[in-house]
């Protein structure tokens, strides 16, 4: 597995576990707001968990407009 794929996979696993969605229902191009059924406060919760998990700092403005797992993974990968 490449680093990018590994990052994406870890994000999907973390999101599935945190928001209690079956992992197999999540795909890289899903809109995570819709698929996970989360609001802005929960999105911040997810952001915090991802920062801790990957030990990175993700300024909010880098995620402006990002709503799918694949793009999210690429933004995280760029900071690893």
């Amino acid at each position, binding site marked *: 597995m490449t680093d990018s794929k590994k990052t994406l996979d870890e994000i999907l696993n973390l999101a599935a576990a945190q928001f209690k969605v079956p992992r197999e229902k999540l795909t890289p191009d899903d809109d995570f707001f819709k698929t996970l059924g989360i609001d*802005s406060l929960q999105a911040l919760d997810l952001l*915090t968990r991802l920062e*801790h998990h990957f030990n990175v700092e993700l300024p909010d403005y880098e995620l402006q407009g990002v709503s799918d797992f694949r793009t999210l993974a690429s933004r995280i990968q760029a900071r690893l």
Partner: protein
Amino acid sequence: MKMNQFKGQTLSWELKDGVIELALHRDPCNEIGSLTLEELEKFTSALERMQSDAHALILYSTLKSGFCAGADLRELYRGAQGMERQAAARGVREFLERIHKVMNAIDSSPLTTIAALNGITFGGGFELALVCDLIVADKMARFCFPELRLGLIPGFGGIPRLKRDLGNAVVRDLLLTGRSFHATKAQQVGLVSQVVGEGESLRAARGTAAQLGKFDRATAMATKKFIKPIPYEELKQEIVIFCELFTRPAVETGLKKFVESKDAQPYLP
């Protein structure tokens, strides 16, 4: 009457074993509007009478969503609707002067004050945490001053207290980019004194408060006065700048956008 216990609609407090615990519990995330302000004023009046029997004060939220998401922007927007801008600004000034009085009372309290944080600690919530002597945060706490996106500056005393407590790089980053950061980063920059596991901040704050009870109060009070001066002049200046900015049309547009937003990310700067 000391009023050692109170249960209100937005907050409650209790004095027990020398520790006052102030719990915030207004859904969805302890937004500070006129009712919270009234109850906070009630609290600071009671605090004056209770503090001779206490050595510590803990502020915390009972809500999972977070400590406090800041000012109640929906109430602010509704209140300003249909009002001439200068009249709306006068109302805002009065609100700010009252909340500053509350913040200054907690900041200058002879007790050692601890903010026990979880989740969202934004805007006015961040400012409430900044009046405390110690900040204990669970690792999911998140800090931000999102006022920039409304065309405003923080108005509950945030800027002078940030400048008092933190270095320029982080103060400017927070205030000029409107970004948020988590508890670990907050500890790295000197804002938070302890980071604990999720849901553990109140327990850790209680442990700290118990430790504080072992020391001589007069020494603790003298130390606090020496290391934590209150920037009164800058606090007054902040109100003036906030009210000047508030009269601009851009602020009404920003508030309207926030209040009417169906965006999934209204809290994201």
